[in-house]
């Protein structure tokens, strides 16, 4: 994610004495793990459940479809977090 706003501009205030070093926990990681885990759970559940259960969702196995979507979104967050980490380390 190349968010232009996220990058530190020249207007960053001086970090004087007593300023914190910032909170280094990358929020992309817990979001990514949570959404991917949900995605895997829903996908597996969608695969093992019978068609009759999906009558209410207009006959669509939405657990399966939504599970895959959530794996993609969660995986995207994890990928972004790891890329950022790699950039910092490199």
């Amino acid at each position, binding site marked *: 994610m190349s*968010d*232009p*706003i*996220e990058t*530190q*501009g*020249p*207007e*960053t*205030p001086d970090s004087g004495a*007593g*300023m*914190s*070093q*910032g*909170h*280094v*926990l990358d*929020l992309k990681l*817990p*979001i990514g*793990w*949570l*959404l991917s*885990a*949900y995605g895997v*759970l*829903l996908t597996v*559940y*969608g695969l093992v*459940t019978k068609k009759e*259960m*999906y009558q*209410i*969702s*207009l006959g*669509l196995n*939405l*657990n399966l479809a*939504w599970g895959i*979507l*959530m794996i993609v*979104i969660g995986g995207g967050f994890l990928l972004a977090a790891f890329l950022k980490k790699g950039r910092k380390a490199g």
Partner: protein
Amino acid sequence: MQAPIIALNAVDYAIIAGYILVMVLVGYSLKKYMKTGEDFFLSGRSLPSWITGLAFLSANLGALEIIGMVANSAKYGIATVHFYWVGAIPAMVFLGVFMMPFYYGSRVRTVPEYLKRRYNERTRGLNAISFAIMTILMSGISLYAMALLFKVMLGWPFHTSVLFAAVVVLLYVFWGGLSSSIYNEVIQFFLIWLGLLPIVFLGLRQVGGFAGLAAKFAATMREPLLHSIKFLGTSNNPLGVDWFGVVMGLGFVLSFGYWTTDFLVVQRALASKNINAARMTPIIAAFPKMLVPILVVIPGLVALLVLPQYSQSAVPATDYNSTLILLMKYYLPNGLLGLAITALLASFMSGMAGNVTAFNTIWTYDIYGSYIRKGRPDAHYVKVGKWATVVGVLISIGTAYIALGFKNLMDYMQLIFSFFNAPLFATFLLGMFWRGATGAGGFWGLLVGILTAAGHYLLFKLGVIHYHSDMAANFYQAWWAWLADFVVTIGVSLFTAKRDPKELAGLVFGLTPKPKAHRRWYARPAVWGALAIAVAVALNLIFW
């Protein structure tokens, strides 16, 4: 006891448990960063704007808000979009472009602290105490509504839900302070969209898309439900409010009052890592905010067409507050159901956590640190803040049981806003943009504004003044409270001693150097703000 509306299975419970586990772990892992007061109360002023922006939006996207707006949409139709495109976007852009330089630039830690520096100690005290009461009431309302909903919907015991949610919120706010609260809000943002979009998708699929929706309403002579503005010429429309009430009451006073002066939302911007990020916070939030009607308005309209409870032959005076719950039962299979419940649970808990963090900050800085124990070392105030969290949660449990006595929670909340936020906006507007406003003017204006709201409320309840709907009463109450504050502040200021302009540098427009424009045009708040306004205007025209 009545049988629960919805039956959950093990997969649903696993999804709920996963969310709670992640929240507690995130709170625990933040513990080691909480060294100073700024860390605990303002996230060390270190967060990027995408995080503060999403938290800024989610702080307002509580479960009550979502359930209430789906209900509004079933009741009032597309006019519900006014709460977003008229009642939020302009205020959010105004906050980011014009007001944030004074909030963030002056390095104040809270909204009352700004009032102290701009006006005087008394004005701060009035605001700090009324705000502390308001947040703790709101936090109790979240807790109460959650426990009640889960009792009716899932059959969970009321007291257990209250205690369990209170303990989880307490743990992660105690450990991680504002950061915990903000991180929970960002996670909630994604859960709300992922949890509720299946309903929107299935609903539109069943009625045949937007075209099918429109055709079905036209066929049943309910066309006014499909227009936001066309029928606002008089108050004879689904909302029961005329254009003046919508534009001035909701669009101007209520919305600007809430978005620009409520510390609950402003605190998120103050946690940003620099002034540009702080200014971008509400503007970044404005874009997803414009899309929230997809989640709330479409389900409300679909419900009118598909749910047997809302068919035109059904008994009128249906309870619209259960619209969303009925739709969840109607469309979602187990699995997705757990996800949707988790989304609601997350927004209840983050609603409570947001209020608790705003409370402990105001209590520690503006009440304890100003009137009870001044000038202690920073570590002392962090400790006080942590204990204020515990006490805040305990009082919330108490107020949750007080809330048992109120029938309509949404009206109750709007009422609280029109009492405290609406007049406060006049105080801020004059304080930031007119150097002639004096300390005495600020205090008396605010006090008279609050009293005007109280007086208006009394007259309305006694039947002396009449409106087409409670909503119209709220809008006009906000307007009169604002006007009273505005006029009194100016009047008193003209006859009281002015402050030395040097003391007001950094606090008032015209006495503050303009923030340097960002080098790159695409990172400038004004550019994005203008774009947000343009999109909002276009949306209003499309759904005229």
